[in-house]
């Protein structure tokens, strides 16, 4: 209902709304549209749940619900970090897959020094890649798509050169210290025997990053930076630092996701993580973080991740094949981008 009223207001006088909007009104509209986008994604999740119940009586079983969530935790970890890049107005980080692969491979390589060393090494890889991306894009204003794509090429080339295209195995590298098995169990560990640890880690990241985005001064500055880079810069905000931090957060969550993915796959290899970049951007965008930057929330992104999980689940339950599923996911992405651009245009903010 409220959504209808909102669009009605705009429809009444579209020509006047945009030019006459004062700053106060813009802010209100923003909060309102953010609310809609956040609620909207959970509304979609609700619809999918209803369809699911109609399709299968086992849909609401604890096992199925856990499998929906369990199947998208790694994606979720990537998405909550990637959201910061999109939020900062820099679209996407295409070095996500290689960051995942590299931290996984390096962690496996470091297993000879124990499990703690392995995890720290994996995280350090994310830190270094994030710092480089952040510095170059934040400081030198490199095009984020081109730069992160180039970065992905370089890292991948490096991995293939160092390990001669071979894959390495945690159980082999960590055999001497016994850390290999611990590493493999990282992904498989269940808290209290029921809740997968990956879900707990994702929840922790989501909560912390939600507060970082919404409550911290960095988050507020990032919002302004994302909404209008020049305005933020002119008002004295350290835009280089903020953009750099956004890429750093993204690389760090990608590194965590990479360690989990390597643990799950029991293999460290240069090709790990492929496809997570687009899947993450899809989750981020349908979760309400606009590609134009400065709008959206982690709550919405988690909703986006859940919707992707639910969509896959419901479609498989309906017997729809994987190719059609890919088309549907792509179509939802296009639709989300379309709706966002349209609502921004209506608000007169499509140039932001």
């Amino acid at each position: 209902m409220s959504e209808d009223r909102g669009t009605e207001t705009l429809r009444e006088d579209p020509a006047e709304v945009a030019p006459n909007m004062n700053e106060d009104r813009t802010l209100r509209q923003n909060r309102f549209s953010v609310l809609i986008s956040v609620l909207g994604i959970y509304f979609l999740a609700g619809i999918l749940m209803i369809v699911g119940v109609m399709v299968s009586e086992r849909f609401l079983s604890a096992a199925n619900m856990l499998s929906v969530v369990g199947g998208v935790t790694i994606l979720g970890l990537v998405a909550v970090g990637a959201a910061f890049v999109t939020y900062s107005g820099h679209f996407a980080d295409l070095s996500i897959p290689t960051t995942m692969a590299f931290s996984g491979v390096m962690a496996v390589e470091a297993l000879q020094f124990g499990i703690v060393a392995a995890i720290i090494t994996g995280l350090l890889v994310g830190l270094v890649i994030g710092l480089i991306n952040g510095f170059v894009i934040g400081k030198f204003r490199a095009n984020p798509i081109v730069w992160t794509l180039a970065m992905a090429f370089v890292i991948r080339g490096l991995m293939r050169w160092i390990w001669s295209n071979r894959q390495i195995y945690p159980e082999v590298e960590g055999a001497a210290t016994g850390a290999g098995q611990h590493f493999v169990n990282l992904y498989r560990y269940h808290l209290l025997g029921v809740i997968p640890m990956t879900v707990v880690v994702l929840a922790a990241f989501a909560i912390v990053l939600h507060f970082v985005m919404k409550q911290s001064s960095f988050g507020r500055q990032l919002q302004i930076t994302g909404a209008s880079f020049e305005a933020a810069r002119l008002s004295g905000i350290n835009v280089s630092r903020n953009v750099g931090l956004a890429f750093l957060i993204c690389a760090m969550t990608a590194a965590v996701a990479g360690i989990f993915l390597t643990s799950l796959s029991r293999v460290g290899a240069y090709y790990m993580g492929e496809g997570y970049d687009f899947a993450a951007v899809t989750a981020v965008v349908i979760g309400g973080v606009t590609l134009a930057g400065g709008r959206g929330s982690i709550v919405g992104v988690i909703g986006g991740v859940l919707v992707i999980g639910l969509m896959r689940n419901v479609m498989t339950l309906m017997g729809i094949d994987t190719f059609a599923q890919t088309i549907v996911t792509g179509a939802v992405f296009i639709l989300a981008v379309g709706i966002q651009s349209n609502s921004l245009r209506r608000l007169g903010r499509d140039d932001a």
Partner: protein
Amino acid sequence: MKRLGLIALVLMLAGGMVAFAGGAREADTAVAEDNLERSLEVDISGLRSADGQTLLPELSSKEVPSRPDNPRSLPETDPMHWYDMEYLGWGVEEKINIPDSPADGAIGKRVIAIINGDHPYLTAYSTGMQKIADAYSMDLTVLSPNWDLAEQNQMLDEAINERPDMIILVPLDARVAIQQVRRVNRAGVPIILSNMLPEEEAMQYAIAWTGPDDWGQFREMARVWADELGRSGGVAYIRHAPGGSPYFARTYGPITELAEYAPDIETLDMQAPGFEAEATMQVVSDWLTRFGDRLTGIGLADDSAQAIGTIEALRRAGREDVLVIAAGNSKVGMDMVKDGDLLAITYQSAEADGAVALKTAVDWFNGLDVDPVLYIPKQVITQENVEDFMPAQW
């Protein structure tokens, strides 16, 4: 007198030249014969792959039935529907412009192999090929275009310009392979195709195709699977990448085999979530929700990421009773067979795959008859024999 003397001189010179040339030819023939003799004497039976298996045991043969009139009109569960894929290369009636074998032995020959990309499997493949090259003191170069078709075409042109004694090609694209092979053929360079199947037409211009018998392997494994399933229940398949030959072979191989061997086994679904553990895990979890106890078996096109995702989903659901088979044989897959997570995987020796391509070239250089299609040996790996195949090649 002078004139007679001049004629005699010319005749002598000419006679001398002919005698010299004849002698040189004799010497050439002698060297060639010697090289052939030495090549034929090379014993490669002692060569082993990294897993301790004989690098090149006796190659598998395949019974080729006659082609039905219109295979595509038959139902998909009929093995003959897939005739043109499964027996690709056997039906070529006439080979075009294939150079005659020099029959002068393989030793010292220059061979350029162009593979399709970088992958742990192909690294082992190249290792196997190199072992054969070393055994015959051949000059082998292996080039990888890293999954880039334009790059592969360029490498092929450069290889043709170098005029090696043989080109070995792993096609990147089944259709483009026709032009590629024709180009090499027109340049008069002998070519052998390997590993990935091209379209049938390409086979006319190549001496042979060598590689795994994907269909045969899955037929063999499907029987083991069916026996363990008690020839009943419901199965589902995770497929290979669309477009390639394994996409069909690893799904319809078992489906058509089971239709004959265990017709009570029902095919519930097939999906292609790619080679990604998390995505596969979700598909399998969804199947468990959708089919419940009806799902008793899962067939996989890959024994690494797909197997990991599948087993993880089964474990989470407490459904370890589901019997899983997969195309192998990576380290991950073999470990899972050993642990009892996977019922069976196929033995596809990457090193043998590379070795057989070059060994076929060797046979051709040695003037031996070469079959149009040569398969590497197929075997099913289960918990009972898995130790024989370890450590894994890749």
